[in-house]
């Protein structure tokens, strides 16, 4: 069973991020790392592919960035397709999905595509479903468990009340939630081997896309303005006079939590 995993390479969340005042988007000129959200998809893919299958990574990132890909290759993925092109600057989520869909087609034959439910930096949570739509595949979101049964995939899909059991024919796209599996440590042998694993770096033209339809030029959305988030208000302290629980219950029901 061959699995393709979408992995986003993002600025290290430990470093203070900054917006580019010109483009009003996140600055991505520094070192990028594997989005932790995607380490779950990589781990699940490795488990599902087993010894007989192969895990291929696809990523779109500026400046030919491979650090995050190397991490996932060191965990055990076999190869990667990286789309990197100046023309992609300013791409919105739909363009990202179109580009990744082309990259997935380039990656070879696959039975399953995995992505994270949402990335840690952009977190629109829309790219995976758009990829599925572009490729004409069924998509299942919020997976907390994934099993393969012949030509179908069975997914426990997280809901607010519990989970739904969803069955869907392969090939399909499944987006997984954080924490579903414990991502393995890249082994040192894996780290050494990752150096020589193939990363197929391609441009927009290599994928048969027109540069005029991607990046700023192709974005259907525009960021008009960015503003500081409102400073958080100090919380209300409730002293327990024996009746405090009523106030807590009232507070929660005002929020429609209960």
């Amino acid at each position: 069973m061959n699995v393709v995993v979408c992995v986003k390479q993002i600025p290290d969340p430990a470093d203070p991020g900054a917006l580019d005042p010109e483009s009003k988007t996140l600055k991505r000129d520094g070192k990028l790392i594997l989005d932790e959200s995607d380490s779950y998809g990589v781990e699940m893919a490795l488990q599902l592919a087993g010894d007989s299958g192969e895990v291929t990574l696809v990523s779109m990132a500026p400046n030919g960035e491979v650090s995050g890909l190397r991490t996932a290759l060191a965990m055990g993925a076999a190869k990667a397709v990286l789309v990197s092109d100046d023309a992609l600057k300013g791409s919105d989520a739909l363009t990202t999905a179109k580009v990744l869909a082309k990259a997935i087609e380039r990656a070879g034959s696959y039975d399953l595509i995995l992505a994270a439910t949402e990335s840690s930096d952009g977190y629109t949570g829309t790219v995976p479903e758009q990829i599925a739509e572009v490729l004409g595949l069924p998509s299942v979101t919020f997976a907390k468990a994934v099993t393969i049964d012949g030509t179908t995939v069975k997914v426990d899909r997280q809901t607010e009340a519990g989970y739904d059991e969803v069955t869907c024919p392969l090939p399909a796209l499944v987006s997984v939630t954080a924490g579903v599996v414990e991502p393995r440590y890249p082994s040192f042998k894996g780290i050494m081997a990752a150096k020589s694993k193939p990363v197929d770096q391609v441009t927009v033209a290599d994928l048969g896309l027109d540069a005029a339809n991607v990046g700023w030029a192709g974005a259907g959305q525009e960021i008009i303005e960015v503003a500081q988030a409102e400073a958080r208000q100090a919380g209300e302290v409730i002293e327990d006079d024996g009746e405090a629980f009523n106030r807590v219950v009232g507070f929660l029901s005002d929020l429609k939590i209960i």
Partner: protein
Amino acid sequence: MSHAPLRQNLDPRDLLDLDAELSDEERLLRDTVRRFVGDKVLPDVADWFDRGVFPREMAQEFGRLGVLGMHLEGYGCAGTSATAYGLACLELEAGDSGARSFVSVQGSLAMFPIWAFGSEEHKQTWLPRMAAGEAIGCFGLTEPDSGSDPSSMRTTARVDAGGDWVLDGAKMWITNGSIADVAVVWARTDPDGPDRGAVRGFVVPTDTPGFSAPVIHRKVSLRASVTSELVLDGVRLPASAALPGVTGMRGPLSCLNEARFGILFGACGAARACYEAALDYSLERVQFGKPIASFQLTQRRLVEMAIAVNRATLLALHLGRKKDAGTLATPHVSVGKLDNVRMALEVAREARSLLGANGITLEYPVIRHMTNLESVYTYEGTNEIHTLILGNAITGIPAFG
């Protein structure tokens, strides 16, 4: 010359921006060990220290990670650079010197001699299992009456009429002794025998009759590490048990050089952990109405610690690059072992006092590191022994005896 404006900001945890000196691969490896230590060592190590144990299961965890014998080639080892091995030691020792000691002994003192001097059979039998952490090794050189002067050892190896080796004697302060599956034991041969009294190394399965390894109790240092005595009472081994590739003190000394190289990185990790604990504490602890970090005297202490840790790490990296380039000399290793461990102990003591009364409890890592470093100061050549090695290198006059 660049006239670019100087950056004004710095990372308080990486004053000299040494991170930039690492390759992507080294960084990935370092981050992996750091994460491993955060997940598997730090949550429990104070408890191991308190109880005086090092859980055997950690061997397999280390094995899966690939840290055991990581800088050796083949036989299931990862074959990384020496610098990468050093960085792994640094991160492990930022957890605890006991964890780093386990890895040093397994990789540099037990696997290395088998890899460098063993027969093909020794290598096939032991190295893959040791790399995986399925078999644990130890290194028996020190004896009750032979420490800094190991060539005065009294453990003997004689060849009996049937051609077998017979080992008699006792080894002392042996890390991992009681949990080992195999011991690399150094012993003096018969003056009238074929080796003319030279020291030889032996690969001794610890289930060989006559071998026992009682644990040394009541240690106040390196408590999350097993330290043992080895008793060799007529231990009979086949002729093939001797390491064929080396005769004389060069054998054990070359292993020590490997291990010392890891220690000169490791000490930076222990010191960094102490400095970071002191920094965090001083920013939170309020006295006289302010965080104690606001006092000039505290800032000086923090600055001295930060400079010491960074300078030592820079030295370690320099020696790592030299080892990878094949230009490292024995006295270089002595500079690193001597100065970096001394630095770490001083930083640990300063951090200990900066934490006030909290500094004496295992709730904070500092006193654990501080007492551990007393062992690190003594083993693998004491401060005095490395001073004598360097004195000899500088003056040309040996002053050991």
